[in-house]
């Protein structure tokens, strides 16, 4: 889609509903016609033009702005300061040594960002220059999109994209509707219906349209795609008529007109104020645990750096207290230096030491880590196994910053519908007043009248019951927002042609509704279409019944119900209401509540999704009142949502219960297997759903979240009604803790099947009670702690009846609990967005409920089953790779800089660098950069298949184990050891002797080159020893970069470089290679450096192997020594005889 939508904003606006909803208003003059005098005086505002600017830079401000942005990063700023210090003071190393890497890093980033911005410029230009048809003075003229202004009347034809946010005035269709697909905005490809203002829908030609005299008052733009309130004032005969405008009148920029020949609409938000543009904003700012430890290490290294510099400065002044050391006759200061104050000198010395040792903080680490993450994330995109044939979708990576976090997940919060289940609903049965109807349509495709195809629990219903039954069917047929899509395209075979009619199918944003309408079809009542605000139903006798739709009280997740008000042909007005049982039963005054309730509960236990249906007859007076209530609420500009909710609450009451429906939502393929694997990998899986407890727990059993031996703990309203919350909580914790008190940790590894674990069920209401802050002072805090304690000991938790925000609250509660576990939230719907954003890692499923979850997620996968590979394989790999990358980077820079530190003790603390400038500069950029980058991209310590087969391997890397302080200290100690070996090895070799066969002596640069050669080879070999997966690329890069070092050194010392003002490296490398002892000592020192690490690895593997290592060894045995197995099996068989 190419754009990132801010969801932070929507989240904020969600929190602030009521206060912030109405910011300010704007008035739009349609076709720029002034309102007639005498009406309210509006202040004409200035609106931006319709130019979309997604680019960040212009040609002129690119360099300063980009530099500013880059140097805002701490690391870059640090290196800039070092560079400036080098320029200002007399430093041991030339400014090039830090300037060049910095320049390289900055340039690479700038080029990347510049290129991206150029692409954005190009895209902007294409959009801004595309032609738009505008009605001016009764004629349609064409102008560039960017010149469009607020108030212009725009003419849009079919399949065109709207150039800005528009209010629909009229369309080619008689009823003033048009169809729109918002696929590019929110991914919902279904056609949505939008409505023209009733009073203008008759204006259908450009002349007529330009005669409209009206103003539009609406709120200032806000980013929520689904919210809009406004009012249109139409001046007919100078008599203003006000009509409400809502989101059903607003056509959004980026959406496309479908199935409608043309429309006229007026621009109200243009350019950067369109809702699409407001949603451009940034992605979430999540940081991974690895990044956090990286920053901790950085602080440690900064401390080491500063203390090194301070120690050396202090020692320098102690050492040169003797003037003959400070300034012997052969090495005098210049007069200017002598004049300088001692404090200034000391400070410059400190800075110079800082500069000398600054490489201990690896400049290229950030670039390498970023490149690793960016490039590495392609492996997720490319993964064939995460491609779903059915949907034709593959995994999506929205942010690559969190790749390694996928390997650290401890808690998985999953949505149920559409995530665990397919969200592919199938109508199972309905129950009217206790009579159960099950369609048998699948048997023969014919819907037969009569009771043959309908199972009934009771005896045949009487005539009265038959009326109720038909009323129920009609209610289900009418109370929905399903559209009928008439397929006129040629691929009729695919969709099936029925009885000569063109094929048609139902479209809705809710699959439940489709299933219900489709189920009614099988029971004999077919919903045909909606035409001229009449719904048409084909009843059992093949007669068409027409109902006039008066009002639709649309569904929302807070009310959890929807209603329609219809007038049937006989003139009676009915309100049909459909919703969750918990939201219907309290509003019911009559009907066979008990029978229906029993059936609903029965179905819920089976794991079916149930809805209750009720109705209410409205007398004309009541209807008038309803109309009044609704229109008042709808016209409100402020707090419209709240007022509407109140109105709905007043209208949807005194209902008569009709019955209930049951729809099955099948489990997704391999959902159970995936959950089992996650459990084995040591993750705790929580299901958070809005569904009712019985349905949800049935799904949990089916998906093996709860097993037969799982002891279920309930923390529900039902229980808290009997006991106080306090007692229930203490009861449960006692049960759990008693059990765990007697158990060792070994058994909890999940190896033994007879082991009982706990499952907790909690509902939304109880959760609110548990989390309610400070009512009884300290006591309430205890509840939360107690609850967390119980949760920690449960392997699975089911939270039902959850509102979207409650989901986020739960995630937050776990996230901030004292262990700070890494959380992952996965969901497919808009109601999961808040938890997806709250969790450390948010994963969206490309489900049927639009793309909001996918858009707001960090990663998106087509199906729940792909989570297994995502975490167990990709997450594991990324974590291993990144942690090695981080540790190795610090290691190789310690080895690099520590010899230089040691050298200060032998050169009078004069900040003399050990290595040549070229080596200092290129060490991190080219000699040692590529092997580790490649390692961090393609290392596989274990085959992917084994990782998938054995989820418990995931536990080996839990809790950031490879970046623990102990392993950090090990790596640093190894680095210091290597540095000491290298430095003193070279020192003793050079000690007062010659090592050439012609008696000539070597100088300090040969000394440094010898150390550096050992260094480059050692760190590269260290990486080679850590590599478990040697492809040809690894061979190429590792041996290639060593070869590059040798070739570079030969070249660098091979000629007198005219651009250098020193020639200290001339022939140094060659002379060194011409000496036998130098070769011998290089080999010796490399061996000595690598020895302890190899020994540590081998011994640890033999004595305290991790699971990973066991499996590696085992696989090796199986692969290479089949004879051993054979022998062993022989011995065992002999023993058994």
């Amino acid at each position: 889609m190419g754009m990132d939508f801010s969801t932070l904003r929507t989240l904020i606006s969600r929190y602030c509903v009521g206060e912030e909803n109405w910011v300010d208003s704007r008035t739009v003059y349609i076709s720029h016609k002034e309102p007639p005098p005498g009406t309210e005086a509006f202040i004409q505002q200035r609106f931006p033009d319709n130019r979309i600017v997604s680019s960040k830079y212009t040609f002129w401000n690119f360099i300063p702005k980009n530099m500013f942005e880059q140097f805002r990063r701490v690391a870059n700023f640090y290196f800039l300061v070092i560079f400036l210090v080098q320029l200002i003071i007399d430093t041991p190393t030339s400014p090039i040594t830090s300037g060049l890497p910095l320049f390289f890093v900055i340039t690479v980033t700038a080029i990347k960002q510049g290129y991206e911005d150029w692409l954005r410029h190009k895209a902007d230009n294409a959009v801004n220059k595309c032609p738009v048809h505008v009605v001016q003075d009764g004629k349609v003229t064409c102008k560039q999109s960017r010149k469009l202004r607020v108030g212009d009347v725009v003419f849009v034809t079919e399949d065109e994209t709207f150039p800005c946010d528009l209010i629909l005035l009229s369309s080619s269709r008689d009823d003033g509707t048009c169809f729109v697909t918002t696929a590019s905005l929110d991914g919902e490809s279904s056609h949505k219906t939008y409505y023209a203002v009733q009073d203008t829908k008759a204006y259908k030609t450009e002349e007529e349209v330009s005669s409209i005299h009206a103003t539009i008052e609406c709120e200032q733009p806000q980013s929520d795609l689904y919210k809009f309130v406004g009012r249109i004032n139409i001046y007919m005969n100078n008599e203003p008529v006000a009509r409400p405008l809502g989101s059903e009148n607003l056509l959004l920029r980026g959406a496309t007109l479908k199935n409608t020949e043309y429309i006229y609409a007026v621009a109200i938000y243009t350019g950067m104020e369109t809702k699409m543009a407001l949603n451009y904003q940034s992605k979430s700012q999540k940081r991974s645990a690895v990044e956090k430890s990286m920053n901790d290490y950085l602080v440690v290294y900064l401390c080491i750096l500063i203390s090194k510099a301070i120690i050396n400065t202090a020692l320098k002044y102690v050492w040169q207290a003797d003037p003959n050391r400070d300034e012997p006759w052969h090495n005098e200061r210049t007069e200017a230096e002598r004049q300088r104050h001692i404090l200034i000198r000391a400070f410059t010395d400190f800075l110079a030491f800082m500069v000398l040792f600054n490489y201990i903080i690896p400049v290229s680490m950030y670039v390498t880590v970023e490149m690793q993450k960016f490039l590495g994330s392609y492996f997720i995109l490319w993964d064939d196994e995460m491609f779903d044939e059915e949907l034709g979708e593959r995994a999506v990576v929205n942010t690559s910053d969190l790749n390694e976090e996928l390997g650290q997940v401890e808690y998985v919060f999953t949505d149920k519908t559409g995530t665990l289940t397919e969200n592919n609903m199938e109508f199972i049965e309905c129950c009217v007043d206790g009579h159960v109807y099950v369609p048998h349509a699948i048997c023969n495709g014919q819907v037969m009248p009569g009771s043959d195809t309908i199972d009934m629990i009771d005896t045949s219903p009487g005539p009265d019951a038959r009326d109720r039954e038909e009323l129920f069917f009609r209610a289900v047929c009418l109370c929905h927002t399903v559209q009928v899509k008439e397929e006129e395209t040629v691929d009729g075979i695919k969709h099936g042609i029925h009885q000569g009619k063109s094929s048609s199918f139902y479209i809705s944003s809710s699959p439940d509704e489709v299933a219900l309408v489709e189920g009614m079809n099988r029971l004999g009542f077919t919903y045909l279409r909606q035409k001229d605000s009449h719904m048409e139903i084909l009843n059992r006798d093949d007669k068409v019944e027409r109902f006039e739709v008066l009002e639709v009280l649309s569904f929302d997740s807070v009310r959890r119900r929807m209603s329609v008000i219809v007038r049937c042909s006989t003139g009676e007005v009915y309100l049909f209401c459909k919703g969750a049982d918990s939201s219907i039963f309290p509003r019911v005054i009559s009907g066979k509540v008990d029978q229906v309730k029993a059936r609903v509960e029965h179905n819920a236990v089976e794991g079916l999704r149930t809805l209750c249906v009720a109705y209410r007859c409205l007398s004309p007076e009541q209807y008038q009142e309803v109309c009044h209530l609704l229109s008042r609420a709808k016209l409100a500009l402020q707090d419209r949502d709240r007022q509407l909710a109140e109105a709905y609450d007043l209208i949807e009451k005194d209902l008569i219960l009709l019955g209930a429906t049951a729809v099955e939502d099948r489990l997704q393929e391999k959902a159970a297997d995936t959950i089992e694997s996650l459990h084995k990998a040591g993750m705790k899986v929580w299901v958070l759903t809005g569904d009712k407890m019985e349905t949800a727990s049935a799904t949990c059993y089916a998906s093996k979240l709860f097993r037969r031996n799982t002891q279920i703990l309930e923390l529900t309203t039902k229980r808290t009604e009997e006991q106080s919350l306090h007692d229930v909580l203490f009861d449960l914790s006692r049960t759990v803790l008693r059990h765990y008190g007697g158990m060792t940790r070994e058994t909890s590894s999940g190896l033994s099947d007879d082991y009982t674990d706990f499952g907790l069920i909690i509902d939304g209401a109880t959760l609110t009670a548990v989390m309610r802050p400070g009512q009884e002072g300290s006591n309430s805090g205890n509840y939360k702690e107690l609850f967390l304690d119980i949760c920690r000991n449960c392997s699975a938790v089911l939270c039902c009846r959850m509102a979207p925000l409650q989901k986020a609250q739960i995630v937050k509660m776990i996230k901030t609990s004292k262990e700070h576990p890494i959380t992952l939230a996965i969901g497919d719907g808009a109601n999961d967005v808040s938890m997806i954003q709250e969790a450390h890692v948010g994963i969206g499923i490309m489900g049927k409920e639009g793309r909001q979850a996918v858009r707001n997620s960090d990663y998106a996968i087509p199906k729940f089953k792909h989570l297994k590979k995502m975490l167990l394989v990709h997450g594991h790999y990324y974590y291993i790779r990144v942690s090695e990358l981080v540790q190795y980077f610090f290691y190789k820079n310690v080895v690099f800089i520590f010899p230089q530190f040691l050298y200060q003790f032998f050169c009078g603390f004069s900040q003399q660098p050990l290595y040549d400038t070229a080596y200092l500069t290129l060490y991190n950029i080219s000699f040692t950069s590529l092997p580790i980058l490649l390692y961090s991209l393609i290392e596989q310590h274990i085959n992917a298949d084994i990782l998938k087969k054995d989820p418990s391997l995931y536990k080996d890397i839990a809790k950031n184990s490879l970046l623990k302080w102990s392993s950090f200290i090990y790596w640093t100690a190894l680095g210091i050891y290597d540095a000491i070996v290298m430095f003193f090895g070279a020192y003793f070799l050079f000690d007062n002797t010659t090592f050439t066969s012609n008696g000539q002596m070597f100088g300090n640069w040969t000394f440094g080159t010898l150390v550096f050669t050992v260094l480059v080879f050692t760190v590269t070999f260290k990486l080679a020893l850590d590599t478990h997966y040697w492809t040809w690329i690894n061979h190429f890069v590792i041996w290639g970069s060593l070869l590059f070092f040798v070739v570079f050194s030969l070249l660098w010392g091979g000629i007198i470089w005219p651009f250098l003002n020193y020639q200290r490296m001339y022939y140094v490398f060659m002379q060194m290679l011409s000496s036998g002892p130098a070769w011998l000592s290089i080999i010796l020192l490399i061996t000595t450096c690598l020895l302890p690490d190899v020994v540590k690895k081998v011994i640890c593997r033999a004595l305290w192997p991790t699971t990973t290592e066991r499996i590696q060894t085992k696989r090796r045995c199986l692969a290479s020594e089949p004879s051993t197995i054979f022998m062993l099996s022989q011995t065992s068989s002999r023993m058994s005889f």
Partner: protein
Amino acid sequence: MMASSYNAKEEVDGHHPGSSNHGGTGPINSKKPDNTAFKQQRLPAWQPILTAGTVLPAFFVIGLIFIPIGIGLYVTSNNIKEFEIDYTGAEPNSPCYVCAQNFSWNSTTPCFCTVNFTLQQPFENNIYMYYGLSNFYQNHRRYVKSRDDKQLNGDSKALEEPSSDCEPYRKSGGAPVAPCGAIANSLFNDTLDLSYVETNGTSTPIELQKSGIAWWTDKHVKFKNPPGSNLSVAFQNTVKPVNWRRPVYELDPSNPDNNGFINEDLIVWMRTAALPTFRKLYRIIPKKSGAVSTLPSGSYSLRIAYNYPVLSFDGRKRMILSTISWMGGKNPFLGIAYITVGSICFFLGIVLLIINHKYGNRSSSAEIPN
């Protein structure tokens, strides 16, 4: 379309609901990832694992190779003959005490002193004569930097206008110093002469070879005299470094080709030493033809023109005579290190063998039945 399309009549036709119409085939093909080994992370790879079993032979092999090498190096190093004598003159009984105490930069005549010593063993083959300095920080940053490689390479512009790195030894009395800088200024200028003292008291001077002490590339490429056939003309606008007694073009009166920047003593000195205690090659005593040893055992006298003060910074001066093998001078360190590392490897090999025997079998046999 795939988001929520649903054909109401399809199931009536007997289609399975799971296989209901989902999209076209177009998007499937375009979004399907390429099934290449690289993209699927399935490149063929060698997957080595370091276990006790695999590392063990390597340790033994390293041990078996390193120990003989070490012994060889150690023996070679021990066979090298080296003689070292300190002539600093810091102690009152030392022959150079007077010279050392009375040192003055202004004296025009050098102070001579003679040190007598005895070689217990004859020295064979080419013998290399070094001077050694201690506590002399040639690797001090201010010192290392203080040179102008362009000037030393014969660049006439740099000769007139030496690099600012040479401060405070850049100009003297307004004229450029050649060669400039602290390194050149502090050129070691003691003259060492060696004589063989026969039993009857007559001493025969030993011929010391001045060439071949500097790197060939330094002498011929890196260091060049400024253009001009006559050196004194080429250097006419420059002054000698303050602490020098003679200008650069008169460094070696005996050999006109060894003057100016290509004087080998200067070149050797200009290669700054890595550590504060160092030695530099001074002269070579070439092997004599025939079976006579180059320096037979007996008494020798070393006559020193004492020009170079070191006492001010607690330095020491030494003269070293050494024979050379293929591995350079006497340095037992490398041999000992090789023997040590080799033995450690061998020992570790044995430890690993035990570990592998005790634990390796246990872990693998425990795993295999699974």
